[in-house]
């Protein structure tokens, strides 16, 4: 198919060479398919179908938050810089980031998108004259205790230098940014510490840093590593190696598994899972290697993992779902049963083996959207 396209392209070049302006104008009137803009989720056809996800899934596209329930998308905020939704532990409210030109802030919203409270105020008074005076906040999450807000925040910027490596911060959920304290140092000119996931006693997060600082055999370039910290001001410890290049952790509903994305330093993005005992990860298993996976998110009922990936090669990111059966060990097959028959004197008939079970494939739920793959999803059970 691809080959025929390029053969066609070669023919076209010849035609254009002889056809000149007429051919060009004709072709100009054709709608290009590669640059077709994504459709809004609420207008996309076909709508989410084939599999109806349980509960309500919150995700973002073009600065708006959408809620997916019963197979239909509902836009709950305007396209106004909204991103990174997460849920409070009791599931009664949303948190989200809202981008300004050079800053971003955390807001609390109702489950239907109405802003309830602006938690941070990161726009500097003179920030348009000197943009560096503003601050970024990303990936807000409220811990299970309901009172601690975790986030990525560039509060450690120094005057007169260029380093903007954000660190992992926590603050009282009902408090102000003045009460925030840094749990990590953010590194040094490397991209910082990102996307904290609160756990019992601490947080898992993604550290971007030069791999050879932690592994003498690693190359000197920036890698992603999952880290765990259980004490503010401590460095914490590595959960994955620089060579694995893993990022964007997501904790399973039971708290005993972590889904992540690992790239091994290449332009690939594997969906990987590992067991989690509260302080360390078990062996990693790459459960999906055929797609460019982003932001894996566990279903609250444990039925699978939602994630973003392109619908077509090099295309915008769509919503996908991987059923649990794809990564859960299957029960052993029952022994083959002999074919029933009457008494005979010859050899027993050969038992019929059960047919092989086809592997469970990921399900593409949308086809024409363009979801923000750097924004995690929030899933309300």
């Amino acid at each position, binding site marked *: 198919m*691809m080959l025929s*396209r*390029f*053969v*066609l*392209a*070669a023919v*076209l*070049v010849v035609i*254009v*060479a*002889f*056809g000149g302006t007429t051919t*060009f104008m004709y*072709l100009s009137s054709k709608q*290009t*398919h*590669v*640059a077709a803009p994504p459709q809004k989720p609420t207008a996309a056809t076909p709508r989410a179908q084939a599999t109806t996800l349980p509960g309500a899934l919150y995700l973002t596209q073009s600065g708006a938050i959408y809620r997916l329930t019963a197979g239909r998308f509902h836009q709950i905020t305007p396209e106004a810089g909204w991103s990174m939704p997460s849920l409070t532990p009791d599931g009664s409210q949303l948190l989200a980031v809202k981008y300004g*030109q*050079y*800053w971003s802030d955390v807001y609390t919203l109702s489950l239907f998108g109405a802003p309830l409270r602006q938690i941070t105020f990161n726009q500097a008074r003179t920030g348009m004259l000197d*943009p560096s005076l*503003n601050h*970024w906040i990303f990936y807000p999450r409220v811990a299970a205790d309901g009172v601690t807000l975790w986030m990525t925040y560039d509060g450690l*910027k120094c005057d007169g230098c*260029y380093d903007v*490596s*954000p660190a992992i911060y926590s603050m009282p959920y009902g408090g102000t940014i003045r009460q925030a304290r840094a749990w990590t140092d953010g590194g*040094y*000119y*490397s*991209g*910082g510490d*990102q996307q904290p996931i609160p756990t019992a006693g601490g947080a898992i997060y993604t550290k*971007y840093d*030069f791999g050879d600082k932690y592994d003498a055999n690693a190359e*000197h*370039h*920036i890698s*992603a590593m999952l880290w765990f910290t259980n004490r503010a001001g401590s460095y914490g410890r590595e959960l994955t190696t620089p060579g694995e290049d893993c*990022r*964007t952790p997501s904790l399973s509903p039971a708290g005993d598994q972590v889904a992540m*994305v690992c*790239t091994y330093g*290449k*332009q690939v*993005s594997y969906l990987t899972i590992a067991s989690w005992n509260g302080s360390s990860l078990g062996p990693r298993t790459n459960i999906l290697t055929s797609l*460019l*996976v*982003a*932001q894996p998110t566990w279903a609250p009922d444990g039925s699978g993992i939602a994630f973003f990936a*392109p619908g077509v*090669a*090099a*295309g*915008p*990111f769509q919503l996908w779902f991987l059923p649990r059966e794809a990564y859960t060990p299957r029960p052993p097959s029952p022994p083959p049963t002999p074919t029933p028959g009457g008494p005979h004197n010859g050899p027993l008939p050969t038992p019929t083996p059960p047919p092989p079970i086809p592997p469970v494939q990921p399900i593409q739920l949308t086809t024409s959207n*363009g979801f923000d793959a*750097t924004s995690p999803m929030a899933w309300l059970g």
Partner: protein
Amino acid sequence: MAGTFAYFLPAAKAAWDATGAIVRVTPSPTDLFTPSPSPSATSTPAAAITGAFTILLLGSDDDSKFNSDHVLTQSMILVRVVPSTKEVTMLSIPRDLYVHLSTGGTAKIDGAYSYGGPGAAIATVEQDFGVHIDDYIWVGLLGLVKLIDAIGGIDVVTSNPVMDDYYPADIYSSWPYDFQRVAVLAGAQHLDGVHAMQYVRSRHGDLESDLGRSRRQQQVLIAIRQKAKQLSPEDLPGMSQAIGGELKTSIDISKVARMLPLAASFDNPDSIRQIILASPYTHGGAPGGSLYPNWGLILPLVHQYFP
């Protein structure tokens, strides 16, 4: 920088050439190039290229701070394509490399283009690195943005967050010395032209500065190549209109059709070799903050992958 369009751009150029000056393309500078040994010698124009070839990709800041005829090349990437083995090698040449220029004297290699255009940039790389360059592609800032938008964006696994408080606001701003905050987050994502440009151009927040962004430039080039495989003929006019006068290349029309089949034939990401001339290949301390090359290490490497 955005030059790895070598895989698909030839088709666009064919359309442009035939339909009249939509893109400013430098006439094939035959005085600059020695005949390409294998590709150019083929008698059948439409036959696919089977011989290896090397292209020099050049990217420049060409905003209004600069005289359009005397821009520096912030990005210089040698790309060698070996169709027979389906191997691609990308070697990023640090813009700050302190070398002998073909036009005389020693200076940062990014100045070669400003002194003598693409011919001087090519001659400098050829003389210092001991390679033969078959063709070049030059693109400016807006050209890259427009091109990526014209192809509908690209999918990139951004290796790290790019946070820059002093990113130049010179493309769309009326005051080209202005700056802005940018934040390109990490991970697999679909980037439009502006954000792809931010990702490959920013260097303030990267400890490796220019070397760090060279790695990111190679990531984006791979993504552009991937997207190029999706292009169909009807995409070409839109692309040509979008890029405007932001591209120059020496690739002639006879090579165009013969390059086309290559686009679909390179599928294995492991077949793309990415080389950055970091330490010990280069080290600081040269005049004006430039880098000294360690030719004793660089030349064997170059001769191995760019024979």
